[in-house]
């Protein structure tokens, strides 16, 4: 594996920075075209109701209204997963949660569209609803969809239980019998939202000829194309989707909520349609992550060795079948080398918006529960939390709790860095506690396409198919520069539309720097091969007798030294005379993404009179394989920590008895503000991933996993009382005190 890098590990200016701070960057809502209409969506005021009738005639009669649609305008589709997505975008027959779309209007102005919404008459017949995961899973609960209950489940769970998974090996009961101390606890965590600043926005233009253009804010425009073309019944080739600059996603933009609606309205009106969600709509009708109810039981020896471990994870993911608890069950015990372990998970439907990914989806709450019990065991047995984790830590060769055997991983390195850090030995002030937690994410590869053109002036234009949500344009340019042996600023990476480069999976799962990186390196290899060929042609020697060194072709073997090296710029300048344009491209599906472990350490102070928790100091250690652009990596680690702190302390979807969301806005859905936080100190650990030529692991997800338990463990130490429910908001803490 390459070790000596010229470009990797440096911190060039971010390519999107200037456009973003000057306002030049085009986000989802920034695009307008002549003659476009403005759309608005009418949403259900009920948690669960049969739609008896919808009368749109008055809205249609309003001057300026060009199209009104309801669920009836959407024909059925073949794939049941696409059908769920479609019915989430526009209800058919029943409204399944507060905020579920029931009709939409396109009009000549936003004002007219808003007026028209009020003229749509919907008759509802209200049905019983359920929003709590345990209630929804209990027999007798109102069932959202019949016939989708997971096979092999009995009558002890309701029909809302759409998934069941179990991972592990050995027999936890055997382990518990061997343990000196066994602790079993039940936890609850609230549903939280990704909190991206930019609401979902799109501009759709779908003509009667079936040819369409769609501009939208998304983490995956190919996904948008596939889903929308299926829902609209058009060929994928006929719908060109362009991803706008994105104002945050964190997993929340890995599906569609409004695009099919805008396309259908455009098709019906024969005009372009712009649709922008309000913040309230984002909260009520986009996809938060799951809330959970979790049992964890761990048995430990006096020396701190985990003898047995068992987790039962019950997640609710909203109004449609989904598959995500699996990730929680796989992540729960991933940090530890265990003989007897089992993690089970149940996916449950409720009358809430359909969940979608949020940064390491499914893992943070599972790991929160496990790491809380670990902390309690350490407390009870008088053990050091880091030493105990080191004693049990997964290493290279460990058979993971979810099956595969780990290759080189950096958990031990992260734990040792944490133990050696001055933070760990710093004195603690009164009412202050120090919490530690491990975290884990799989990372993955997936399908990817990259196309790289060598321009005649010696610069490189690189097109990739993954929206840049975390700095990938910089890291991809850097890897291209490293592979080609040229300077970083000679390369410009852009995110192409769906017609400009091959299919690319959604930007998620911390896959892009890994997968697009490999494709970029391979595309560079292809371009290098061609450049060597051109040099060979000029020198009139065999192409095999040319090698690429430091950004230039040079003769090798018995031709070595016969000709001076030809740089990329020199070869590019005369490419028109040596065979035409030079380019490299690569399409593939790399699958050797290395898992990433992190360890977070936090000092929290709890005000005993108010229950207010403040974060005093925070240090986050993470193995990222190889930090391509360390500033972006640090930003990822800091951002994950902050989102996890919000999850731990204040963020929650609050539902009333009526099943309606009570806090659809940033005032009462409290993400941390800058003044709530100290500087989060990131510590980058680099244990190279053997599955990437430069050792890259994904780094975006892992950082949101440890903070929940780290903060909870700190609070437990500060207060002397342990909380078993997130968020640990001041009223709950004060009550516990």
């Amino acid at each position, binding site marked *: 594996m390459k070790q000596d890098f010229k470009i990797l590990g440096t911190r060039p200016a971010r390519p999107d920075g200037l456009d973003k701070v000057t306002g030049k960057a085009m986000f989802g809502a920034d695009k307008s075209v002549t003659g476009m209409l403005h759309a608005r969506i009418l949403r259900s005021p009920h948690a669960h109701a049969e739609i008896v009738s919808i009368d749109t005639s008055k809205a249609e009669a309003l001057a300026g209204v060009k199209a009104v649609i309801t669920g009836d305008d959407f024909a059925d589709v073949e794939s049941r997963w696409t059908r769920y997505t479609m019915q989430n975008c526009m209800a058919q027959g029943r409204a399944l949660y507060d905020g579920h779309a029931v009709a939409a209007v396109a009009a000549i102005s936003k004002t007219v569209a808003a007026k028209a919404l009020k003229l749509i008459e919907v008759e509802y017949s209200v049905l019983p609803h359920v929003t709590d995961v345990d209630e929804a899973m209990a027999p007798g609960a109102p069932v959202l969809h019949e016939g989708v209950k997971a096979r092999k489940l009995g009558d002890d769970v309701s029909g809302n239980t759409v998934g069941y998974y179990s991972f592990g090996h050995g027999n936890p009961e055997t382990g518990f019998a061997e343990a000196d101390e066994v602790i079993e606890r039940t936890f609850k965590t609230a549903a939280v939202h990704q909190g991206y600043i930019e609401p979902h926005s799109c501009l759709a233009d779908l003509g009667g000829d079936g040819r369409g253009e769609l501009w939208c804010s998304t983490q995956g425009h190919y996904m948008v194309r596939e889903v929308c073309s299926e829902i609209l019944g058009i060929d994928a080739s006929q719908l060109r989707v362009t991803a706008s600059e994105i104002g945050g996603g964190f997993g929340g933009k890995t599906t569609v909520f409004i695009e099919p609606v805008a396309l259908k309205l455009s098709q019906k009106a024969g005009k372009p349609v712009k649709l922008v969600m309000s913040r309230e709509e984002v909260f009520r009708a986009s996809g938060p992550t799951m809330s959970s109810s979790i049992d964890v039981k761990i048995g430990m020896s006096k020396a701190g060795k985990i003898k047995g471990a068992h987790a039962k994870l019950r997640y609710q993911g909203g109004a449609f079948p989904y598959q995500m608890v699996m990730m929680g069950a796989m992540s729960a015990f991933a940090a530890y080398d265990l003989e007897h372990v089992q993690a089970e998970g149940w996916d449950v439907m409720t009358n809430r918006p359909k969940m979608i990914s949020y940064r390491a989806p499914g893992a943070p709450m599972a790991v929160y529960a496990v790491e809380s019990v670990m902390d309690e065991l350490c407390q009870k047995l008088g053990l050091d939390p880091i030493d105990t984790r080191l004693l049990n830590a997964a290493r290279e060769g460990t058979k993971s709790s979810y099956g595969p055997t780990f290759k080189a991983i950096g958990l031990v390195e992260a734990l040792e860095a944490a133990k050696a850090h001055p933070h760990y030995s710093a004195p603690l002030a009164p009412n202050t506690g120090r919490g530690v937690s491990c975290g884990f994410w799989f990372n993955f590869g997936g399908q990817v396409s990259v196309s790289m053109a060598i321009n005649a002036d010696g610069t490189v234009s690189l097109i990739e198919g993954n929206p840049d949500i975390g700095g990938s344009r910089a890291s991809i340019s850097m890897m291209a520069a490293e592979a080609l042996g040229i300077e970083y600023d000679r390369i410009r990476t852009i995110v192409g539309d769906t017609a400009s480069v091959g299919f690319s999976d959604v930007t998620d799962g911390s896959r892009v720097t890994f997968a697009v990186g490999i494709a970029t390196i391979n595309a560079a290899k292809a371009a290098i091969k061609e450049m060597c060929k051109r040099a060979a042609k000029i020198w009139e020697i065999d192409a095999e007798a040319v090698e690429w060194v430091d950004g230039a072709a040079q003769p090798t073997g018995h031709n070595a030294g016969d000709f001076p090296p030809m740089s990329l710029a020199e070869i590019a300048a005369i490419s028109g005379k040596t065979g035409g344009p030079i380019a490299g491209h690569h399409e593939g599906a790399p699958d050797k993404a290395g898992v990433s472990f992190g360890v977070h350490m936090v000092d929290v102070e709890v005000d005993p009179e108010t*229950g207010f928790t403040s974060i005093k100091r925070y240090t986050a250690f993470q193995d990222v394989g190889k930090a391509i652009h360390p500033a972006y990596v640090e930003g990822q680690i800091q951002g994950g920590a902050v989102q996890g702190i919000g999850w731990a302390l204040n963020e929650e979807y609050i539902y009333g008895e009526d099943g309606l969301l009570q*806090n659809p806005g940033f005032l*009462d859905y*409290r993400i941390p*503000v800058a003044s*709530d936080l100290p500087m989060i100190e990131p510590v980058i650990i680099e244990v190279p991933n053997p599955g990437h030529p430069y050792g890259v692991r994904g780094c975006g997800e892992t950082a949101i996993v440890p903070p929940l338990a780290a903060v909870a463990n700190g609070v437990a130490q500060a207060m002397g009382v342990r909380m078993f429910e997130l968020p640990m908001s001041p009223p709950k803490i004060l*009550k516990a005190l």
Partner: protein
Amino acid sequence: MRYVVAKDSRDAVALLNTGENARLLAGGTDVLVQMKLGNKTPSLLIDIKSINGFSDIFAENGGFRIGAAVNGAEMGAHAALKAMWPGVVEAVELIGSTQVQGRATMVGNLCNGSPAADAVPAMLAAGAMARVEGPSGTRDMLVAELLKGPGQTKLGKAELISSIYLPARPEHSGDAYLRFIPRTEMDIAVASAGVNLVLDASGTVADATVALGAVAPTAVVVPDAAAALLGSKLGAQALEACAAACAAACSPIDDRRGTVEFRTKIAGVMATRAANIAYTRAGGQL
């Protein structure tokens, strides 16, 4: 909707008296948000920012008169005002973000009628007077007399508040305002307290006013809490009695921001902590 810039307060009152669905616009940090959310749909928006004197802070009879369109940032930048009434100024400065501070006004905060308004408990504690202008002329009344309930005030038809007067202070006096929010800024009080103290030469509390916010349909003055502090140097017993009186005065609601139990407990904590700050500001040694 019509937007009109009022020339003077008489003009503003006349516009309010047209029978239209009119709203006043000073900073606009409440009314524009309400309009954007569709909660308010006025047919007439009367901008009072250009009225002579409305954007000024005057020294008057040893105290300060603060115009209805003076924003929080201006109050915060007024050194003499801040030195005399630090609690009122800090309360106003807690409203919204830095950007909002450049627009939001103390009078607007009062007229919006929120039980959780930050400026109101501080004004109550300070004994602030509001100058009310209406069809029948001008009158001055205590801010406390204007409070009615969530989203309401006791202002009559076509009446507006043109300024707030913060009176002169004796020596050894100080005020303070504290609120509890689940984070550190950009939030709405779950419970809050304004405390104004006057000490005698020995540091004993000679006069006190304690007011609470967000624990009743309006901000409330709590005479028993003030009485608990009188004659004390804020010893543990006085503070405990003050907190108990605050708890007794609470009639809050359970909502997404806090429970009855939590608000009742926190109100006393805020009041006693604010009392300590006010005491120190008055020159007392804790």
